[in-house]
């Protein structure tokens, strides 16, 4: 007997209440509850992941706009250069400048420190020479 037959014909033959059928319907109800729980849970995960992806995309868009603004500002500064070769070379440097912006700031501080050190040692050398010449 198929499951459908058992449910339709078989049930009619049963004396009420039939324990076997009651058990079957109880199991069926349990499966329905589990699938409803599974469905709503999965939908909540899908919806949450979609929202996370949307927020990440917003973050990426903001970063992209910042880069575009920086590029526009660089382009405006380089725009007045008339020498084609020089202009191309400067434009080639743009991605390097954008990527290494943080490093460049550190390097520029280091460079300034080197210049100050060199200036102090140069001044000391000149001062020493002057004193030596005066004492002669």
């Amino acid at each position, binding site marked *: 007997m198929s499951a459908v037959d058992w449910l339709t014909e078989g049930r009619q033959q049963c004396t009420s209440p039939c324990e076997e059928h009651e058990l079957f319907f109880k199991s069926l109800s*349990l499966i329905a509850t589990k699938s409803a*729980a599974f469905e709503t849970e999965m939908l909540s*995960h899908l*919806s*949450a992941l979609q929202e996370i992806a949307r*927020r990440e995309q917003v973050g990426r868009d903001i970063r992209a706009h910042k880069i575009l603004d920086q590029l526009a500002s660089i382009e405006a500064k380089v725009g007045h250069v008339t020498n084609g070769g020089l202009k191309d070379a400067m434009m080639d440097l743009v991605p390097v400048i954008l990527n290494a912006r943080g490093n460049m700031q550190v390097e520029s501080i280091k460079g300034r420190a080197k210049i100050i050190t060199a200036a102090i040692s140069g001044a000391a050398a000149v001062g020493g020479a002057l004193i030596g010449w005066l004492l002669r």
Partner: protein
Amino acid sequence: MASTLIPVLFHITQDYYTEKGHFWERFMSAKRLYGGHTEDVLIMISYRFYKPAITRKQIEHFAEVKRTFPHVVVVHAKGVQWNGHDAELKGMEIPVFEEGHNAGI
């Protein structure tokens, strides 16, 4: 600016009690899914489909969820037999809501 929390449902069903590892499998999946965004999601542990008697083990599971996800609430709690454990949940800063619609989201 703080963003709105993203709701994520965890339904408690009979499987929670009958299938060994059911909780940990789902918890680990959630950890993997929302690993970098644990601050952004609101875990809603729901008793919509099953109203059991709360056990000590379940409270420990809730504590583990709370350690990973800072925002956790219990919803559809009407009819659940708390046996005094609801006070522990409140102590863990996990609010308990009788229905699902008033979970503050």
